């Protein structure tokens, strides 16, 4: 069974979701790739940001 830690889980989630978003939300292959990368960065970046926010709130 798969028991990933937080970061691999976020990376897996962001990879799959941003691939689908990129393909479905844009028309041309170049724009699909760019939008997919943009979504991936936003997913991972927001997860890191929220994690630090929760870390400081919990202290």
């Amino acid at each position, binding site marked *: *069974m*798969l*028991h*990933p830690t937080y970061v691999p*889980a976020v990376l*897996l*989630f962001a*990879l*799959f*979701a941003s*691939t*689908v*978003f990129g*393909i*479905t939300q844009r*028309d*041309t292959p170049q724009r699909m790739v760019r939008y997919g990368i943009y979504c991936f960065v936003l997913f991972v970046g927001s997860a890191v940001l929220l994690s630090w926010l929760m870390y400081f709130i919990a202290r």
Partner: protein
Amino acid sequence: MATTPIKKSPPNAPAKGGIIYLPLIAGWLVPGAGHFLVHKPVRGALLAVSILGMFLCGIAMNGQIHSGAHDILDMLSMAGDLGTGILYFISRTMGWGTNLVQITTEDWGSRFIVVAGLLNIIAAVDAHNLRTGRKA
């Protein structure tokens, strides 16, 4: 003087003939199948790998597949799970995802399965848009 209007087909003109909702239904039942039907095999393959990958990760994490609606959250989760199409029915038949969620990764697994279903619905609607000509 009357002029005859020039009939121009739009750039993304839909293919004529066949059932217009077939890519939508096929895309819902089998992830990526809708895009294969509208002759976009690369997009279809990438979507299939992504959605199937997310679903299988969810199953591997011991995620729960919701089979009954006890409250509103269960109902919404079940709607998301149903989005995976045939994968939902295979999982129910094979008895996957029936355990109760006890640890964090199992909860993440449940979310992975729900999101895989929602992503599959987005992909199926995209295939429908390609079929109707709304998207190139």
